[in-house]
Structures are given as structure tokens and as C-alpha cells.
């Protein structure tokens, strides 16, 4: 029998490929390959989740909790149900209530489990657990869609998962890196707002300080003006309630405020430099709604100019330990604040400056 010719072999290969395309079998082969790749990546996410769960368990054991598994499983499976949005009346009030109840519930759980641990150390535990819970949620949702896509041979679901996988993996990696900062109380990039507020307070002559609702309100004088500096109470992992605090302060002053300025971290676009400062209008605060709307409402009620300063960074830089470039940009932000104050407010006026963000590692 004559051996197989190369041209004949190539023709057979082309014929097989044509049959696969015409019958749609290539799609099934691709589906199987994609599921295989997605499962490999899913196992990476699972390993990250297990590793971080173990780290938090060890953290809890060091803090004095002998059997952290039960407490951890309660917190990892903790869920929040969104308020009804088809009826938007008082949705902000309902959302604020749900968020506060969530906060208090988690605080009570950790306080019961770790009664001898200080408030700030407990806040680190709460934040570390929430990071692990986020990774866990990503893993469970992905696993759900993989199993569903495989069972139903749903090409579209699997294709979307395949193309979103790099972004999801990057997010999981960022959360994994962020756990280190939250376990040891290191300032993160998102803390640039509170850090600016802290540095500004150091420069001013602070007259009084009070803490309301885990938020510090400092009154100071600076360049013949009265500054009310608002930031979350540190140095634990805390974002406070700056919106409620600003609203309260402005109401106490009957609206006699010349300017409300919010300072926060913002996600940069690809190609932009980290630490870039941008000015704008509005409330620079990234909460689900209640805090932001409180600032906007009080500014609109009394016709107070609402300005914003943001420091640009990417998600990794926002959640992990603060980069040196971001730390160094704080001085430039303070210079910009001084300029805005000089340009837009007369002497003798009152200015409210809110440093928005997680104040971990930053006291005051």
C-alpha cells in the first residue's frame, strides 16, 4: 500500500475543519477548552481564598479567639439585601438604615468574639474579613456560572466568563495584596483624603475637636478663616460618616459656610500618572448614596459652593499600602487647598473641608 501523501493529508485536514465549522462541532470543542481554562483559573481563585481565610484565622487566634471558624463562617456568609428601588421614595433613608444596621451587626459580632481587643484592632479584623468575604463571593459566583454554563452548554455564558477572567483574576490578586495592609493597619491609597485632612490640621491652629458617629470634626483657624476639618476617626480601619457630619456641621452654623471642599482618591484612566491632582465640582465621595446625598442636599439648601479635589490612582494603589508618590502628592494637595481658599473665600469666612476615605493608620 502506498504511503500517505502530504497533499492528501492537508486536504483531509481542511475537510475535517470544514465539517467542524458546518456542523457547529468546533463550537463544542471550543466550549470544552474554555471551560477547562476557566476551571484552572477558578482553582487559582479558590487557593487564594483558602490562603487568605487561613491568614485571617491565624490573626483571630493571635488576638485571643481560640476557635475562629464559626465566627469567620458567620461573617463570610453575611449578606445585605438592597432596598426596594421600584418605589424610590425614602430609598436613601432605607439604604442608610440598612448600611448602619450592617455596620453595627458586624461590630457587635466581632465585639462579642473579641471582647478584650481594642476598637481599632477590631476594625482591622472587620476589614480583613470583608476582603476575604469579597474574594469568597467572587469565587462562588464564578463557580455558579461555570457549573451552569457547562451543564447547559451555554456558549455565551462561558465566552463572557472567558473574556472577563483576566480582569476578575486581577481584581482577586489586588484584594489578596490588600489583605496585608488591613492586617497590619498600614495606610492605604484610599486614605489620601484623611491624610490630607490630618496634615492640614497639623498646619492649622486647632481650636476644638469632637467625635460624632465615628467621625472627627476639628475646628481650626487658618489664614484668617475658620476651617472645619472632617475626617473618619482613626487610626483604625474606618470610613466614618462624613456626609452626615458635614450636614450636621452646616446645619449647626445655619448655612453660614462659604465653601464645602471634599478631598478623595479617584480611579485614574489607563495612561494617567499616579498622584495627579484634579479639581472639580460636586461631592467627591464614593459611598452607595446616603453620605453623598447628605452633602449635596445641605450644599443645595444653603447655596454653598461644593468643590472637589481628587488624587488619581488605580485600584491596586487605592487598596494596598499607600505608595510614596501618593504620600508625596499630599503636600501638593494642601497647596491647592490653600489656593482655592484664597481665591474663593473671603477672610473671616467658614470653610468645611472633608477628607474622604479609609483612615487606617492615620489618627485624628
Amino acid at each position: 500500500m502506498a504511503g500517505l501523501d502530504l497533499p492528501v493529508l492537508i486536504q483531509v485536514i481542511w475537510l475535517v475543519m470544514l465539517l467542524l465549522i458546518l456542523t457547529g462541532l468546533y463550537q463544542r470543542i471550543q466550549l470544552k477548552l474554555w471551560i477547562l481554562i476557566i476551571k484552572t483559573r477558578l482553582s487559582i481563585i479558590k487557593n487564594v481564598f483558602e490562603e487568605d481565610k487561613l491568614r485571617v484565622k491565624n490573626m483571630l487566634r493571635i488576638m485571643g479567639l481560640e476557635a475562629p471558624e464559626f465566627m469567620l463562617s458567620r461573617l463570610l456568609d453575611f449578606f445585605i439585601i438592597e432596598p426596594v428601588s421600584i418605589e424610590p421614595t425614602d430609598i436613601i433613608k432605607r439604604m442608610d438604615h440598612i448600611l448602619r444596621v450592617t455596620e453595627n451587626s458586624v461590630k457587635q459580632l466581632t465585639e462579642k468574639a473579641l471582647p478584650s481587643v481594642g476598637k481599632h484592632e477590631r476594625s482591622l479584623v472587620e476589614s480583613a474579613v470583608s476582603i476575604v468575604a469579597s474574594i469568597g463571593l467572587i469565587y462562588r459566583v464564578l463557580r455558579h456560572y461555570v457549573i451552569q454554563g457547562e451543564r447547559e452548554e451555554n456558549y455565551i455564558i462561558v465566552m463572557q466568563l472567558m473574556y472577563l477572567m483576566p480582569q476578575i483574576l486581577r481584581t482577586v490578586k489586588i484584594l489578596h495584596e490588600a489583605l496585608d495592609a488591613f492586617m497590619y493597619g498600614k495606610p492605604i491609597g484610599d486614605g489620601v483624603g484623611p491624610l490630607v485632612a490630618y496634615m492640614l490640621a497639623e498646619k492649622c491652629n486647632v481650636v476644638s475637636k469632637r467625635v460624632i458617629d465615628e467621625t472627627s470634626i476639628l475646628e481650626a483657624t487658618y489664614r484668617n478663616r475658620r476651617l472645619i476639618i472632617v475626617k473618619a476617626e482613626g487610626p483604625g480601619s474606618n470610613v466614618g460618616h462624613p456626609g452626615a457630619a458635614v450636614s450636621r456641621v452646616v446645619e449647626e452654623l445655619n448655612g453660614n459656610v462659604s465653601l464645602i471642599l471634599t478631598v478623595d482618591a479617584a480611579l485614574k484612566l489607563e495612561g494617567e500618572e499616579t498622584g495627579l491632582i484634579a479639581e472639580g465640582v460636586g461631592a467627591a465621595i464614593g459611598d452607595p448614596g446616603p453620605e453623598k446625598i447628605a452633602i449635596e442636599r445641605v450644599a443645595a439648601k444653603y447655596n454653598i459652593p461644593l468643590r472637589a479635589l481628587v488624587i488619581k490612582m488605580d485600584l491596586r494603589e487605592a487598596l494596598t499600602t499607600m505608595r510614596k508618590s501618593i504620600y508625596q502628592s499630599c503636600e501638593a494637595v494642601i497647596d491647592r487647598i490653600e489656593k482655592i481658599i484664597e481665591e474663593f473665600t473671603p477672610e473671616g469666612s467658614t470653610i468645611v473641608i472633608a477628607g474622604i476615605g479609609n483612615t487606617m493608620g492615620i489618627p485624628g
Partner: protein
Amino acid sequence: MNSGTEILLAVLLVAVILYLIYESYLKKKREESPRYVTREILVCLNCNYVIEKDFEPGDFIGLIKDTCPRCGGKMRIKGIYSV
């Protein structure tokens, strides 16, 4: 098409497939994100002498710790960041 050309085409096809596999899967494993270390700046409250050292758990900005190697005064953490 003579057999030499066919073999060349087949080799070229295999090379393209191998390159695509390399670009898609193998190359990414080599791109590692840079490792960061956390450092803190301490400033002497007396003589403003500045030192930089590694972060220690429990430290936060504003904490008074260590003594100044120059004048013996108290040092305060001015900043914590990663490099």
C-alpha cells in the same frame, strides 16, 4: 506545489501556532508585579532629624516612638508608604 514548499508551509503553520500559545499563556507567567516594602519616616521633634526605616505592625502616623540618634529627642512617625 512541490513537497519542499508544503513542508515549509507546514513548519510555518506549526511555528505560528506555537507562537500564539506562547503569547497567550506562557508569556504572562513571566510578567510579575513589582514587590513593595513598607517604610516609615520618623522626624525628631527636637532637631527635625529625619530617618527612614521599615514599618512595624502597630505603627501609625503620628505615633511617638524611638529616640533621635543625633540629639536623643523623641521621634514621631511622619509618614508610612510603600516603595
